[in-house]
């Protein structure tokens, strides 16, 4: 990307990735969010290294206020809130990412199959998708959590299995469009193996919308994990998650007199989810070749 005669960056010869990067950075909010996410994500990853105390160890007074020793105070049984927060972020991010991965994989496979093979398979799969989509999301999740006993991995699987319909629909729509294009038809005539057509020709062209949708699934999964843990049906104590740290706030004393116990956790959820949403939005604009006036 050299500069042309007027000293302005010459964008006619940039690669696809560079285009996306440039358009992404134009969204200032998203760029900031990206940085924020890297910081928070890094903190979560490095939690075992940077947390001042072991999150499960009782190290201080009951519900102590923030002090020099415990930057965010201590919780009801004396554990350091800051350390718990770091580990909780880890857990919540883990749940969100894993659930998104699972639902994306399921959705992509089902969508590819339904869209490509069409006919009866398509109809059956789409009816099934409709059925699952008709159930109010939260009811399904709550009921499943009640049946299969709450727990970290159970929550991940449950959330993953409930989110796939949206992605499946999306992928199917894209596949239906792509199936009619000349290059795919050319592949068919040339006798390329099915696996190649599906995974090397069609899939790469639907990656963009899937990615954008996946970010909103990620945001939703994190919110849902928080809600479930808050209700006591998600991640179980003593493991900390951003949701169950808010659970204590249901008691009036905690709510009013000990805000350090719940406000930071809630704020973190808001920041994380907002950042993910901003990035998803910017990605959508950056990846869409038709996006209006920008670039």
């Amino acid at each position, binding site marked *: 990307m050299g500069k042309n005669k007027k000293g302005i960056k010459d964008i006619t010869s940039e690669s696809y990735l560079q285009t996306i990067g440039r358009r992404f950075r134009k969204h200032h909010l998203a760029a900031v969010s990206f940085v924020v996410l890297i910081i928070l994500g890094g903190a979560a990853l490095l939690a075992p290294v940077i947390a001042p105390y072991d999150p499960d160890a009782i190290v201080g007074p009951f519900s102590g206020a923030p002090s020099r020793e415990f930057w965010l105070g201590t919780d009801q049984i004396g554990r350091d809130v800051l350390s718990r927060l770091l580990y909780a972020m880890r857990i919540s991010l883990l749940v969100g990412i894993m659930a998104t991965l699972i639902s994306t994989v399921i959705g992509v496979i089902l969508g590819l199959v339904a869209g490509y093979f069409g006919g009866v398979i398509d109809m059956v799969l789409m009816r099934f998708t409709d059925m699952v989509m008709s159930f109010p999301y939260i009811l399904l999740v*709550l009921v*499943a959590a009640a049946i299969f006993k709450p727990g970290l991995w159970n929550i991940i699987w449950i959330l993953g299995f409930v989110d796939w319909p949206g992605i499946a629909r999306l992928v199917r729509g894209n596949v239906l469009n792509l199936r009619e294009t000349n290059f795919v038809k050319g592949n068919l005539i040339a006798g390329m193996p099915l696996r190649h057509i599906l995974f090397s020709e069609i899939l790469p062209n639907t990656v963009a919308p899937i990615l954008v949708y996946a970010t909103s699934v990620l945001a939703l999964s994190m919110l849902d994990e928080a809600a479930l843990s808050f209700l006591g049906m998600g991640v179980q104590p003593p493991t900390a998650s951003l949701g169950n740290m*808010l659970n204590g706030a249901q008691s009036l004393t905690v*709510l009013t007199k000990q805000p350090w116990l719940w406000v930071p956790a809630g704020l973190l*959820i808001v920041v994380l989810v907002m950042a993910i949403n901003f990035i998803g939005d910017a990605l959508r604009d950056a990846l869409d070749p038709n996006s209006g006036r920008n670039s």
Partner: protein
Amino acid sequence: MGKYIIKRILIAIPVLIGITIIDYAIMCLAGSPLEMLQGPRVSQSALEAKKIALGLDKPFYVQYFVWLGQLLHGNMGYSIKSYQAVSDMIGSHLGPTLLLMGVSLIVSLLIAIPAGIYSAIHQYSKGDYAVVTFSFLGSSIPGFFLSLLLIFLFTVKLKWLPSSGMTTLGTEGGAGDVALHMIMPVIVLATSMAGSNIRYIRSAMLEILQQDYLRTAKAKGIGRFLVINKHALRNALVPIVTVIGMEVPTLFGGAVIIEQVFSWPGLGLMTMSAIMNRDYPVIMGVCLLSAVVVLLANLITDILYALVDPTIQLD
């Protein structure tokens, strides 16, 4: 037009049946409510007797058809816990939930539609950024967190608003009282709904505003007000209707958590306790009801589409 409607209805029926089957199958995995009714010291024979009385010893597919038959007679079974008729329970709890949901939906639309349109028209202005940021904030805050914040602010610190139930204990209630209790839950629900609605409406309007027919209208000299409100808005109705249609399932869901936090005596609260108690006639009743409502909402949305944009009937 009639053909379109009939086609849609025919497609919906197998989905409905499928829903009841899935619903029932999930319940069978749910485990026995007997565990909840008896304590650990009850003898085996008493457990067995109770089991037969509840009809739980028949194979599960027989139970399904028995239940289905009862359903078509309007009987949704009896709660295993409280022996009340499920249809009665749902009936008495439905009103409060509908009230809350309806008002929240209207409020969120009142916020979202003007905001989305304004934001699209004045794209990239400070107002646009403000609206977009607010909408992101609204859809990123977990409902229960916002509820806690509001309760903290308005009930504890300012002592302005009540924070639980639908009416003040011991009083008759009355519209004003209910309205007061409703303010905070509605704010929470409407905010998160408005958050996502604004985004949809804004991007729909943005797309429409770039269309050529609007350029023609402006070139013809039609005033800006008319251009936006008559020409652009009519086309924006399609996404707006979509949005409303999509909110209906969310309404049932979001209710559950908010109703918990505010002890609002609606379906959500009833469902939570039913789930805790493994009260499966109640759970099945609620699931069925919501799935049917969602199906109906989709159907109506599809029909409304056909009305608003006749080209859609060509499918």
